[in-house]
């Protein structure tokens, strides 16, 4: 016992260092966003407050750009509404959104964003009080943005599409052939494209039977329930065939301009919520019967 104390007294600096280092590494490697109720992310009140104050100052310098973007989005939506009114005698009222009754959109402002880190996150100025929940998709007028991984009452953290862990199910708009989009160059080492570029992502697992042309449009496939079907992702910039795997890998030029992201929409899937509610009520009634 006295030996241990003497040892600690002699090496307390080293021991403390090792303890703190191990604590940090535990944080790093156990950081599972979906199931962790931690404080240490940019959705908490301190970081959220600093970011919204900072972006509040900067937002004045971007008003011109933001206005232009919103005007463009308005035009696009007006066109969509008038198309629906003109071309078909839909029984649905024109107010319903173009994705049918399944999806709702919550507007949010971007208060922090990065594009040049190995894994990028976006902080939004809306949280669970506005109806945002973990696992929801985030889109911009130009295309997809990411997935919500953490919410607090007034802020939320989004895993950007520019993150090594994100995988999105996407498809060719014209043919419907689908594949998986990622921003992790390690997943497609044979393509040998430089990673870390905020303008590009990689689409893998497209069969050799697909006829690809540069400039083809890639959209979301809607298989994952995170994004509605048909949201713009980007266009084909370059492609390579991997003969031994019978697959193409495709370099996709992303349509979203991640450097100038100011306003986004969070996608809530009403059917998913309905399904979850149904499941909980079913569970509750089962539990009641057991009692």
């Amino acid at each position: 016992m006295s030996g241990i104390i003497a040892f600690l007294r002699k090496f307390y600096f080293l021991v403390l260092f090792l303890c703190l280092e191990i604590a940090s590494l535990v944080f790093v490697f156990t950081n599972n966003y979906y199931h962790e109720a931690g404080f240490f992310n940019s959705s908490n009140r301190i970081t959220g407050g600093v970011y919204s104050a900072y972006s509040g100052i900067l937002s004045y310098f971007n008003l011109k750009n933001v206005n232009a973007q919103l005007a463009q989005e308005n035009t696009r939506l007006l066109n969509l509404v008038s198309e629906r009114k003109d071309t078909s005698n839909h029984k649905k009222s024109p107010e319903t959104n173009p994705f049918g009754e399944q999806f709702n959109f919550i507007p949010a402002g971007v208060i922090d964003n990065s594009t040049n880190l190995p894994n990028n996150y976006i902080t939004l100025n809306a949280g669970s009080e506005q109806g945002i929940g973990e696992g929801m998709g985030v889109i911009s007028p130009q295309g997809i943005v990411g997935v919500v991984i953490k919410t607090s009452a007034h802020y939320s953290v989004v895993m950007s599409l520019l993150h090594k862990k994100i995988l999105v199910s996407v498809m060719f708009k014209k043919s419907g052939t689908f594949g998986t989009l990622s921003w992790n160059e390690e997943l497609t080492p044979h393509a040998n494209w430089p990673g870390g570029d905020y303008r590009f992502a990689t689409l893998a697992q497209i069969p050799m039977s697909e006829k690809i042309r540069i400039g083809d449009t890639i959209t979301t496939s809607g298989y994952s329930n995170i994004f509605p079907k048909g949201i713009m992702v980007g266009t084909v910039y370059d492609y390579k065939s991997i003969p031994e795997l019978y697959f193409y890998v495709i370099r996709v030029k992303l349509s979203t301009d991640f450097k100038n992201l100011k306003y986004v929409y969070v996608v809530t899937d009403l059917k998913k919520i309905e399904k979850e509610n149904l499941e909980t009520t079913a569970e509750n009634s089962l539990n009641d019967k057991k009692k």
Partner: protein
Amino acid sequence: MIIEIGKNILRFLFFILLQVTIVRHLDLGIYFNPFFFIGAILMLPLQADKTLVLVIAFVAGLVVDMFYNTMGMNAAACTFMAFCRPWALQIYSPAGEYNADATATVGSMGVGWMIRYAGTLILLHHTVLFYLEAFSFYGFFTTLAKVILSSIATLILILITQSLFFRNVS
């Protein structure tokens, strides 16, 4: 003594706020990600208790991690840097001893000493941080380039900040 502690706390707030607002958004491409806030750890009093420095570095790292959503990575890197600080101070000590009122600034110790002392520790910090962030040795040389270029950027930013805001320290 209390003034001294207050000064150090203010210096930390100043460096961390600058880091998470302005430096974070400098946007110099993927090879330049300066983590200049570690300047606050480097500029702690030379005579400060090394255990205290270790704890301060750990906490400062955690705070920055919160802003970057990189839980634990900066904490690990900063703790490692603080662990190496006594050693760096020792090998770069001028003729054996530091003056009692010496501080880790250009004004007090000279540019040459500052570049050697800060450069070494910045390089150690960035090496740990960037390899943890990459989390694999895929793209080993890309990460190495990031470490070296970002370290240079950090060093330059710290030297500029010192010459702008901490000139009167000497």
